[in-house]
């Protein structure tokens, strides 16, 4: 039932799941019930690698596994040589703004840039340096100068021109300033000017608030702001691809925060931005960009405040009319995460028992019948129908396995009876149901 699991993965899975978080490694072993979704994103990643751009909306309510899917997506994308960035929408950031809230989102994205060898984020300097190294190598080859020689200050202009030329080739809007700042980064390194290097990085992350400040520090006229940050993201995408990466994947979670914007005009401007990103990606105006939005059903389908309130998006994101609960279409931009059914949860728990046993080199004394008894008990707890999520089911199950492991004679039925369900949802307005007359 479990193939090729490594001890390190087993430990990571068990420890993370007990802690209620998605494991860093080995996540591929616990994707029960998500075969279609996984196939959908693998195929999407393949398309993006081949130069297409894609936008996907991962839609599901609290506990449906959005974060798990995004994490799995990250893991696979990093392995597939993608540059990946994750950011959450918050009340203080958004896609469209004119008071700096879009740049806050951009900064969050740039801060979280990750690559396979730096999966925790903060990989922007590494990527910059790798790119510069490539330019240096290429320039050295073209000019017949040794790699150690060309790093001397006397060749600074040569490198500067190469950087500017290369940046101009790969970028469109804002390319000049972008190139100039990379040159400054290189200068800072060559001249041992740490401040210059940090200022260049600060500019690239969108952390300059005024043009004056940027001009004083770096000699550039523009800064990254609410109106040009998206162009800069596109520049970075091309920049990463030019280095040999498969593409740039940006995951934006907690999209409910866009739905929560109280001013209708501002909300619609944000949806308009989503539409322009969507159109850019699917009309081929940009290559190798993969953007994922994760949000609740409300965020997508609410006709008054959700994406469906914006007609142009509604027409693009409405479900395939031939799709049913049984016959799904995962090629659509919207992937709805349906809750795992009892059979899938049973398989997942059984699998977790095997991973647990493998991790602790033990043989847990819990039968299939007892697993289903545990499920019955937990699904019948007060509050289960409202609050119970796979996270809690898994956590409780592993905790019980731990108790059994350390106390083999414990009464399992009593253990199952002690389970309590708590509401772990963020504080949000309850979903209103339409009730027909009796």
């Amino acid at each position, binding site marked *: 039932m479990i*193939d090729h699991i490594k001890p390190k993965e087993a430990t990571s899975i068990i420890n993370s799941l007990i802690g209620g978080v998605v494991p860093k490694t080995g996540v591929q072993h616990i994707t029960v*019930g998500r075969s279609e979704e996984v196939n959908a994103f693998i195929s999407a990643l393949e398309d993006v690698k081949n130069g297409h751009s894609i936008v996907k909306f991962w839609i599901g309510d609290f506990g449906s596994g959005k974060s798990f899917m995004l994490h*799995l997506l990250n893991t696979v994308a990093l392995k597939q*040589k993608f540059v990946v960035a994750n950011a959450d929408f918050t009340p203080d950031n958004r896609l469209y703004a004119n008071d700096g809230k879009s740049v806050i989102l951009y900064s969050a994205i740039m801060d979280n840039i990750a690559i396979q060898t*730096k999966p925790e984020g903060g990989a922007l300097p590494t990527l910059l*340096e*790798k790119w510069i*190294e490539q330019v240096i190598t290429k320039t050295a080859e073209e000019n017949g100068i040794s790699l150690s020689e060309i790093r001397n200050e006397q060749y600074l202009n040569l490198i500067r021109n190469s950087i500017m030329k290369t940046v101009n080739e790969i970028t469109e809007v804002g390319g000049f300033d972008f190139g100039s700042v990379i040159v400054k980064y290189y200068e800072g390194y060559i001249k041992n000017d740490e401040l210059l290097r940090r200022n260049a990085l600060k500019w690239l992350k969108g952390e300059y608030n005024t043009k004056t400040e940027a001009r004083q520090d770096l000699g550039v006229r523009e800064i990254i702001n609410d109106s040009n940050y998206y162009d800069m993201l596109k520049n970075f995408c091309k920049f990463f691809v030019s280095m040999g990466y*498969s593409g740039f994947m940006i995951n934006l979670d907690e999209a409910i925060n866009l739905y929560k914007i109280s001013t209708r005009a501002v909300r619609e401007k944000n949806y308009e931005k989503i539409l322009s990103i969507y159109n850019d990606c699917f009309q081929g105006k940009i290559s190798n960009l993969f953007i994922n939005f994760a949000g609740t059903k409300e965020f997508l389908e609410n006709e008054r405040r959700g994406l469906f309130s914006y007609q142009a998006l509604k027409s693009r994101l409405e479900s395939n009319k031939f799709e049913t609960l049984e016959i799904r279409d995962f090629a659509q931009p919207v992937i709805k995460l349906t809750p795992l059914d009892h059979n899938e949860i049973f398989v997942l728990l059984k699998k977790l028992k095997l991973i647990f046993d493998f991790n602790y080199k033990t043989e847990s004394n819990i039968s*299939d019948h007892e697993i289903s008894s545990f499920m019955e008990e937990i699904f019948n707890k007060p509050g289960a129908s409202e609050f119970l999520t796979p996270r809690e089911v898994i956590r409780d199950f592993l905790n019980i396995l731990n108790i059994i492991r350390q106390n083999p004679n414990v009464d399992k039925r009593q253990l199952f009876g002690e389970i309590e369900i708590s509401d772990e949802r963020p504080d949000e307005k309850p979903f209103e149901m339409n009730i027909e007359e009796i």
Partner: protein
Amino acid sequence: MPGHIPPYENDDFITDVSGNKDTPIDFGNSAFSEVFSRDQNAAVPQNPSQNSPDSWKVGKKYRRKLNLSEHQVDILDQLRFTENVFNEIDYCRIQILKQFLRTTEYLHKYCIPVNKSYATVIDELSEIIVVLQYNYRKESLNYKYTYDSVKGEIFNHILKLCENNVREFYGIKRKISTDFPYTHPDILEKYHKKIVSKVEVFLTENQYQILDADAKTNIILNENNTNRWKSRFDLIRQDYTNPFAFEREIFRLADVNIKNPSVETIFFEASKFAADLDKNCALRLYIHYLDKSLLMQSDNKQLAKAIQKSLFSTPEQIKDFERILNDFTATRNLEAAIEAVNHFYLPKRKKIMIDRAAIENVQKLDSEVSQKLTDLLSDHEDESISITVEEAKNENEIIFNIENKSQDIRASKYLEEFSFTAIQKEILEIFEKHSFTVLQADFSDFLKSRKLFIASSIDSINDVCYEVLDDILIEEEDEYFTINPNYYKQLLNHD
């Protein structure tokens, strides 16, 4: 009594105070003699006053029941009820009379006439009315007769005020007319000043003395006043403490509305009210509403949508409740319906049905996708463009001027698959020399001396090793860069 001629019943001038039975005059008629002798032999009636010509008078009638004094009997005898459904109820009539007696006693005791020659303020006012309205001389026969008649009018008006006071206390919204028969402004002004204003205050203050209506009376009152329950219902609502006490009070209210054609409305309104406080209670009351509604054969009202929303959180709950209602309508088994409602909100225990075939399918799909992901995440050679920094071809021109021989040795130190560049090997050796932990500042100085970037240098090594190690080789730990010795061993060529 056939053939019996009532003796001057309507003659106000002759008053029989004997209490004896009437003796008819014998005109020599044999038929009459027979009848008379038969009457003579008849049993003596139990109530001696029964045959009194004054027995219909209020005072006489209630003498024993209200334990009246002679004086009170005299006063009450002057009263004439304007008969209506309210005062026809004996209990109500008694309460009216008691309130009347309290009022007149109060007037006699505490409302002193201005002219001390009058015993009471009523006597004084009667005089004023006779003078102002009729202008009769005091000694005239007309005066005497009219004076008594006016006095009776005043008493009857006070009686009406008392009746309204009792009506109000019993929650009867409709009042009887209390127009005073004498409309002369001076009379009205004096009457209001001396009597009405005082009586109204007294009645308001002494309304508490009226006894609560008993169940039998309440049933009659509610039958005649179909909205009377509403005021009591409002009180029950205001006093809500818990669903059981609330229901108990509603049932009591329904019991005294048993003959009220609107009785089902009580349960309906109670159900609406309880919806926000106790769902079970609301459903039970709705069942009782339906029960009464079916009995009355009236149209079933439905709870408002807002109330339904508060009662039912899922469409399944609505269906379940509909099922209970339909069963009840069909069987009319109230007990069963109430029992079903009592269990309505108890969580229904879900049975976990494990479908073997479905599980096999889930496992199969999972195995496939897990394999696919494992392949994607495994350490196979990737076809994508290598992003490692390429060394310049003429390596001996870089940095170190080292003999080829030693280079070969160094090259052979690491497994060939890693294809480390010279500088990468040098970096690895620095780690080896420093027991795999190097201060970041020292490492930075070393790379800066060669004009190399720190981050990209480390990353390029990590990138090369990642395929084999499936992890990062060089890690940052506070102020140090470290290498896991076990990982390092995996890089070495052990041949």
